[in-house]
């Protein structure tokens, strides 16, 4: 058995504990599910009043994908980052680090639970959204949606990681995370509509929310997969690389150092 294989034996108890903690964190769970489902339902009501099933914000697929994006964004930025910052401040990581478990296993466990949470949110919102908005997605399109949601989750998790890498205090992480979430939400919701002008519309296309929505739309055949789609996909990967690098390089296990 090599060292990495030996290290994996520590993953099981950590995953179990992190899963229990996630389930107990009812407020975060509620926000992660309620916000996207609210968007799914409220946009269905408003789109009934719009012509040809199109709301002002975009088509049904766009709205469902936006809801998924908001769900995974809230759990990754507001949930993951705040929990990591809080646990660091309370010394929970210090307690885990004095055990024989390597530090990378401790962090991988946290991330895997978050990825699982993102996937559950995606499936729930996709299924509910499809019913509410009468979408007829093929099995392949469901798979595509899950894959893109995983990429989106990785992107928002890397943003969350960068946030806890750069900011030590849990209170500050919470405050900045909330502002970041609101900023990204506004850019995702209002940017594509052009309500805030063409400059903001162009900028919003390249924000994390804008790029992932663009990839969603292209992959689910709402728009043709073209150069912009490729660039959006590459930008998503770019965001993952840049933000996770920042988050890993600057991350401190102890908030006092």
């Amino acid at each position, binding site marked *: 058995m090599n060292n990495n294989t030996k290290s994996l034996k520590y993953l099981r108890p950590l995953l179990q504990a992190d899963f229990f903690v996630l389930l107990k964190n009812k407020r975060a769970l509620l926000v992660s599910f309620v916000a996207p489902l609210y968007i799914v339902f409220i946009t269905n009501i408003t789109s009934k009043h719009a012509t040809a099933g199109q709301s002002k914000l975009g088509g049904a697929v766009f709205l469902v994908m936006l809801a998924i994006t908001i769900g995974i964004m809230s759990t990754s930025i507001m949930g993951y980052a705040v929990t990591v910052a809080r646990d660091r401040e309370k010394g929970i990581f210090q307690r885990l680090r004095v055990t024989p478990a*390597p530090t990378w296993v401790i962090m991988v466990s946290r991330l895997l639970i978050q990825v699982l949470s993102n996937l559950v949110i995606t499936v729930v919102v996709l299924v509910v959204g499809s019913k509410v908005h009468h979408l007829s997605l093929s099995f392949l399109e469901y798979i595509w949606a899950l894959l893109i949601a995983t990429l989106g989750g990785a992107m928002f998790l890397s943003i969350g990681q960068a946030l806890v890498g750069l900011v030590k205090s849990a209170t500050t992480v919470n405050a900045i995370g909330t502002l970041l979430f609101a900023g990204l939400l506004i850019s995702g919701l209002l940017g594509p509509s052009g309500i805030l002008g063409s400059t903001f519309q162009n900028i919003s296309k390249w924000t994390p929310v804008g790029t992932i929505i663009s990839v969603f739309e292209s992959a689910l055949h709402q728009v043709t997969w073209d150069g912009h789609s490729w660039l959006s996909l590459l930008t998503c990967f770019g965001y993952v690389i840049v933000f996770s690098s920042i988050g890993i390089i600057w991350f401190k296990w102890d908030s006092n150092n």
Partner: protein
Amino acid sequence: MISMPTNKLNNQSSVLVINDLTIIFGSNKAVDRISFTIKKGEIFGLLGPNGAGKTSTLSAIEGLIKFQSGDILVNGLDITNNSLKVKANIGVQLQANSFQNELTINQIIKLYAGLYSVALSPAAIVDSLNSIGLGLEAGKQFKQLSGGQQQRLSLYIANMHNPILLLLDEPTAGLDPQSRRQLWDTIEHNRQNGGSILLTTHSMEEAESVCDRVAIIDNGRVISLDTPKGLIEKHKHDPNVLKVSRGKVTLEDVFIGLTGSEIRE
């Protein structure tokens, strides 16, 4: 890193060897060339005012902070090159009882049993909890326990894998006299089973009651090291000690005489 002769490094009777340990935070030298050893079955106390370097020394042994120079060997293993093996051989109780509030006592024990590779059946967990007086609390969350109960659980987890060296950072801070006595009994029981203990404390009573040897450290340096009685004998005629003594010289007089009367933050 300072190289040491092999025969000195492999001193088998010493569970912990610290040689010329130096820890620097920015421009602050928190620990300045500290050296001491702990033998098998020995209870060793680190006494010092706030900011003296006690917790930094412990954190370096625990592998939580990097040190600039010196050597730390646990059971002959150099911590720099064998960090995870050393961690498997030591038990740690941190100053803060840092367990996830959301987890129940049962779940916390399962988590740490998994991390220390200790096979515990559900019946064994119940027995363990009964033995530390937490049999009825198994389903409670950590935050629902009293300070004494949290401390008992913390000590149980630090000890669950029968470590050869137990590191306790101010283990009785904030405990009532009953809980403190109970903890001392546990420490003594651990020693009788051959375990060695390194503890930091502000309590002179604790140092005198449970420690075989004590090192007084200040400004990152060991300023005196001996048995509690030996320290009193060694320094009872020191003018600084006599100045603070109110009659028969005590360990507290020696401590204040050597480290000064001013309050540290």
